[in-house]
């Protein structure tokens, strides 16, 4: 459980809130590059951390992320004309460049310099790995560009998707580090999902359904190890990475791609669930990409023309009680992503953590909260840079590995948990 004030502290990320200020220390995914595919394409509404913004790509290919509303009369610039290196409000023609600087006010004499006095709030927006990233903190503390391996490998080696989740970011993220739910909620998918099946490691999962967990602090967040019995008294370890504030990387299976998530607040009651798949040493195959686009693995199928999952709360997640009864899915909801989202959304927009009853296997969640609370206090009180910003914290990997029984996985998998170009992931 958390006290109410702790729950509020961690779940509120709007401007001026302590957690909101800390979240704004990081480069975060804002939208997919495919949403702004060409110069002068239509602008896109973006809401992040309770701030309504508009993203556009100008005539010269520069990306802009600026206040959604025209400074004149508050019209949404989503209706704007993207032309001649700026976004022009269709109401009275005020025009803004990618920095939010007003560059034309047709009703005022150009010589008056009036437009120079108008500037909308703006944030940098850069492309990396098919994702457009933004930094929403103070300009003088802008960190180096993101170095996550999925965003820095070759473009054919990686695929990222996103979906709207109608819950606070924290309960979504906590699902990502809650390793003990996998043996239940996702048990039907291990041997059927084409992006998971066939790995030798799956047999350890299936023959030992009661893993023992170890939670170890890492420089950027946590290593969460799930231990199962392997041959000759050794242990099969699946090590998940959590890097603050909301990045996870799940342990790989065989030669399948490596995957994980970012959870980024849209506002306090909704978030973006970002899902990436990549392989450090090979291109993703057309078949793999096709399956990801079809919603396999951790991805979802969409309502056409949106990033709203096809199975969503408006259609009761297309729950199939027959499949549930027959054991094809444990909850009756199809697909790993929506199995998670359906249950996390059912908790309500912001779960009341004063009422929960955590148990020993929830120590990953408890430790993550502990680290977040400690980091936000240090950041707020002393301006200490939180973990997860340093590039070293971002160049990490999850791992699946077999180790002797008395070896700390942090020691035995030390090299495997560092991202190195052209080095194969540790996978079983």
């Amino acid at each position, binding site marked *: *459980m958390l006290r109410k004030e702790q729950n509020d502290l961690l779940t509120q990320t709007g401007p001026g809130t302590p957690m909101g200020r800390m979240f704004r220390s990081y480069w975060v995914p804002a939208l997919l590059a495919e949403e702004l595919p060409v110069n002068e394409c239509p602008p896109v509404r973006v809401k992040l951390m309770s701030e309504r913004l508009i993203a556009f790509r100008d005539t010269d290919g520069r990306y802009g992320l600026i206040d959604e509303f025209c400074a004149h009369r508050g019209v949404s610039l989503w209706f704007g004309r993207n032309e001649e290196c700026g976004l022009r409000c269709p109401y009275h023609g005020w025009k803004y460049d990618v920095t939010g600087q007003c560059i034309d006010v047709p009703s005022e004499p150009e010589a008056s310099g009036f437009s120079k006095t108008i500037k909308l709030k703006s944030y940098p927006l850069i492309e990396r790995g098919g994702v457009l990233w933004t930094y929403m903190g103070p300009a003088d503390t802008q960190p180096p560009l993101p170095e996550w391996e999925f965003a820095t490998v070759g473009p054919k080696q990686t695929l990222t998707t996103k979906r709207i989740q109608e819950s606070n970011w924290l309960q979504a993220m906590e699902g990502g580090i809650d390793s003990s739910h996998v043996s239940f909620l996702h048990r039907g998918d291990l041997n059927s999902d084409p992006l998971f099946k066939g790995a030798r490691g799956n047999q350890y999962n299936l023959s030992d359904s009661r893993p023992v967990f170890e*939670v170890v602090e890492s420089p950027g967040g946590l290593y969460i190890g799930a231990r199962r019995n392997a041959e000759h008294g050794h242990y099969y370890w699946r090590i998940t990475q959590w890097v603050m504030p909301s990045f996870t990387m799940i342990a790989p299976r065989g030669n399948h791609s490596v995957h994980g998530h970012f959870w980024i607040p849209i506002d306090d009651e909704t978030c973006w669930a970002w899902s990436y798949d990549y392989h450090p040493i090979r291109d993703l195959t057309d078949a793999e990409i096709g399956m990801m686009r079809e919603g396999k693995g951790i991805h979802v199928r969409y309502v056409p023309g949106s990033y709203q999952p096809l199975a969503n709360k*408006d259609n009761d997640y297309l729950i199939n009680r027959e499949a549930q009864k027959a054991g094809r899915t444990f909850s009756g909801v199809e697909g790993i992503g929506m199995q998670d989202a359906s249950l996390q959304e059912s908790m309500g927009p912001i779960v009341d953590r004063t009422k929960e009853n955590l148990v020993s296997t929830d120590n990953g969640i408890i430790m993550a909260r502990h680290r977040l609370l400690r980091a936000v206090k240090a950041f707020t009180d002393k301006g200490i840079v939180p973990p997860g910003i340093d590039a070293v914290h971002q160049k990490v990997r999850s791992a699946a590995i077999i180790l002797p029984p*008395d070896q700390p996985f942090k020691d035995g998998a030390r090299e495997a948990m560092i991202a190195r170009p052209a080095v194969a992931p540790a996978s079983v």
Partner: protein
Amino acid sequence: MLSESSRMSSAAEARFRVQAPNSRPREIAVIAVDTTSDRVVRRLAEGTWNHATFLTAAHITGMASPDAGAGSLMNLSGGTADLAGEVNRVDLVVMVASPGGHANAVAMIGEACSHKRVTTTALVVSAATASDDEVARTLAQLRPWSLMVVIANADDYIEDMLMALRAS
């Protein structure tokens, strides 16, 4: 028309959640198993805890046999405590250890918990400055008897953990 899932997951519907307690208070025994963790546990015990008992096995310097349980623990006042009785009384046993491999009482405590089907968690404190070898020696003692192991850099984690588990 809204689906049932849409209606029932709204913030407005949260007002109608049953407000009655959904769990009886659970009891936790926190046991220090070496001298470093003994200091951590004594400091922790100075707080107000309604559902946690603090004990120590730091005085056990040799390997304790699993059947040596009776009377082998001590409370923090120096009196003896009956291991089987304590395990019988609680829902969770947290064994607190430090790196270095001095957790000699773990097998004895773990056996008692296993016999009574009581869940065990092991917490390794003061790990930030320890060598891998020191951590490994302690893990070798803890792993056979722990359903969850946590290696924490800061000693204040245990307080947050107990709060999260409703020991306050």
